[in-house]
């Protein structure tokens, strides 16, 4: 018997058909108007493509999009399939959250920065952690030497988190923590602080990234093999669904996939494929898709090819809504909404002529807004050099405020809806994404594809292609391979003081000498027992260990002992 065609393969085939209709108007125009014009003006034919290597035509018209576009593919804002936005009145009713990622040096430094941002009108907190924290090494591990506080704030135990949030009422803020492999531990720390402040658990609002699949695909910050991390994420999903209804436990992230060199289509496809995996995981764990899927949020990149980014974000909303409904049986509208945070691209920033980065960031931020983002981080112009200075962060925040309050782009929802080009490109991005979904399914699913290094190799190939195009001058970066200047003066950058390391070591020693060692040992033993039983939820055990001031590394070492380490497949 012939195997039944998979959902992905069927959809891909349908989309291909939908997007490949003949366009006699264009053909006639090209023959009688365009080609003679090119000949007359001596225009040399060259290929125009975007980051996804999709060729772009000179012009688009109504024949390039299906006849049923408005009824079937777009709808209106707040209505299925949500191509035009997830809320009926979009930014009129709810402006995007201006969420600036911060966190560097010591917890004291970060506490100060958070308070500064709150004072300047920021409406949500976002915290970056340093490398040792992301890999779950305490600050006294030899591997952490020189890395403390360099890329974000260092956290070795609950004590550090207490300092970060000192004087900040957790019932009044929402906090996004960019943490993945140790996300369950940091969530437990946040819950512990909430409990100490007397905030009811159901009021704790925020997000952890916890998207471990993209770590294996792109950012490469893992502790254990994929299956072990996925199991702990499952535990966190179940625990938080029951206890902390305002805690978004996974932010499915395309940002890092893109920064690792992926194209817009690869970012779109791999991110949503990760999302579908988490949906299947929740369903397998016995949760109702309408109960947990609304808590999955997304995190996309906004890069420099303006219309490609807008099309990507519109396509993402439509794909998510359709697949959740058609394949996973979601019934509530809320479940179908793809809510996302966007960050402008770090990859496109140059350290040559750094002030030009203000312009790049502005264009990328505008694309994110026209793509319908729910929150936005704008990069600072000095970030190709180092962590941003306070002045540069302020300009980046002001960029968003100018877009929001001066330009009028927020007045109407999805202002580019109906543009032939944008609609065609949105359809094309969708089709290309389904080509990848189909391919991934044929490889045995995303987990197998990741373990085989397939996605990593696809990204590396795109990244290499772009580098070659830059070298050949086929793609331009102003100030780098065109309009460059000799003898540029270095700009003032933020330097992380060496005091951070000492500060952290001192506090860790203090924690270790003042806690109850016997209790710590016991909670870690209990955690080990829990980890060894697949069907036990580890989350309450992690919380208990955290509350006894077991350190990040001590807690993770239990997992390292139970699950082992991970060596990635060969990519190049």
């Amino acid at each position, binding site marked *: 018997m012939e195997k039944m065609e998979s959902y992905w393969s069927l959809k891909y085939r349908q989309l291909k058909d939908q997007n490949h209709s003949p366009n006699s108007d264009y053909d006639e125009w090209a023959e009688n108007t365009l080609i003679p014009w090119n000949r007359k003006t001596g225009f040399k034919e060259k290929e125009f493509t975007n980051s996804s290597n999709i060729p772009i035509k000179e012009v688009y018209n109504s024949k390039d999009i299906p006849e049923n576009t408005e009824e079937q593919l777009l709808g209106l804002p707040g209505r299925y399939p949500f191509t035009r936005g997830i809320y009926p009145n979009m930014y009129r009713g709810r402006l995007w959250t201006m969420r600036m990622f911060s966190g560097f040096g010591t917890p004291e430094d970060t506490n100060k920065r958070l308070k500064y941002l709150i004072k300047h009108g920021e409406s949500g907190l976002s915290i970056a952690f340093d*490398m040792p924290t992301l890999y779950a090494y305490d600050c006294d591990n030899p591997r952490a030497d020189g890395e403390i506080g360099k890329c974000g704030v260092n956290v070795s135990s609950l004590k550090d988190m207490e300092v970060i949030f000192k004087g900040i009422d957790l019932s009044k803020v929402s906090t996004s923590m960019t943490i993945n492999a140790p996300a369950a531990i940091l969530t437990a720390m946040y819950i512990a602080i909430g409990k100490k402040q007397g905030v009811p658990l159901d009021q704790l609002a925020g997000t952890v990234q916890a998207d471990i699949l993209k770590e294996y695909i792109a950012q490469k910050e893992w502790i254990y093999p994929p299956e072990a991390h996925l199991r702990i994420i499952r535990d966190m999903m179940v625990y938080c669904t029951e206890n902390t209804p305002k805690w978004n436990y996974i932010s499915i992230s395309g940002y890092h996939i893109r920064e690792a060199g992926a194209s817009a289509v690869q970012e779109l496809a791999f991110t949503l494929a990760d999302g579908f995996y988490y949906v299947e995981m929740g369903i397998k764990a016995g949760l109702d898709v309408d109960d947990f899927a609304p808590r999955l949020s997304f995190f996309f990149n906004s890069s420099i090819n303006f219309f490609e980014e807008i099309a990507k974000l519109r396509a993402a909303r439509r794909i998510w809504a359709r697949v959740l409904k058609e394949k996973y049986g979601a019934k509530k509208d809320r479940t179908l909404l793809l809510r996302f945070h966007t960050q402008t691209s770090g990859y496109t920033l140059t*350290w040559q002529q750094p002030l030009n980065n203000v312009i790049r960031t502005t264009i990328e931020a505008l694309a994110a807004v026209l793509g319908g983002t729910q929150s936005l981080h704008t990069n600072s112009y000095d970030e190709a050099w180092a962590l941003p200075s306070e002045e540069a962060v302020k300009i980046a925040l002001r960029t968003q405020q100018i877009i929001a309050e001066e330009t009028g782009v927020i007045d109407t929802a999805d202002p580019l809806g109906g543009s032939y080009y944008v609609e065609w490109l949105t359809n094309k991005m969708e089709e290309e994404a389904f080509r990848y979904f189909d391919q991934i399914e044929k490889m045995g699913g995303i987990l197998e594809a990741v373990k085989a290094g397939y996605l990593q190799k696809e990204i*590396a190939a795109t990244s290499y292609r772009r580098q070659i195009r830059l070298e050949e001058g086929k793609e331009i970066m102003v100030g780098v391979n065109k309009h460059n200047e000799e003898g540029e003066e270095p700009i003032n950058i933020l330097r992380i003081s060496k005091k951070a390391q000492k500060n952290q070591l001192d506090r860790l020693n203090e924690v270790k000498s003042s806690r109850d060692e016997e209790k710590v040992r016991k909670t870690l033993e209990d955690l080990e027992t829990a980890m060894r039983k697949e069907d036990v939820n580890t989350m309450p055990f992690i919380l208990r260990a955290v509350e006894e001031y077991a350190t990040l590394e001590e807690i993770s070492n239990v997992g390292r002992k139970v699950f082992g380490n991970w060596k990635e497949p060969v990519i190049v």
Partner: protein
Amino acid sequence: METGKNQSLFNGRPIKILLAKPGIDGHDRGILVLAKAFRDAGMEVIYVGLLPTPEEVVDTAVNEDVDVIALSLLNGAHMTVFKKVADLMKARNINDIAVVGGGTIPEADKPKLEKMGISGNYGPGTPISKIVEHITERAAEMRKLKSMEE
């Protein structure tokens, strides 16, 4: 391979280079691009993957008898981590393997790294040809040293 005037030094044996991201830093876009580019330039490339310790880097370089170690870091820890590699090389008296660096390295750190014997230290946006040229020069120096030793 464009080895120019040093062609004779490489006769029969391409430049052998070890690429590593010592320290805890998963940002590997740059190093993966360079691994491919160096291969395309005719070099023999060994990429040790993520998270090697400085000891692992030096051990592998010696066992594989490479001409050049290329280190990449984008997490700001180069002054500590690159130095550890340089110190190990010095402690083990290894003179015939060149060490080059790259990543987000502020101008002010470059002379300090040079002093440790770590050259190049190119940042984002550097043309690959420039990096290949530098590595070829350093590799040629190493081959000269090796031929004198023999």
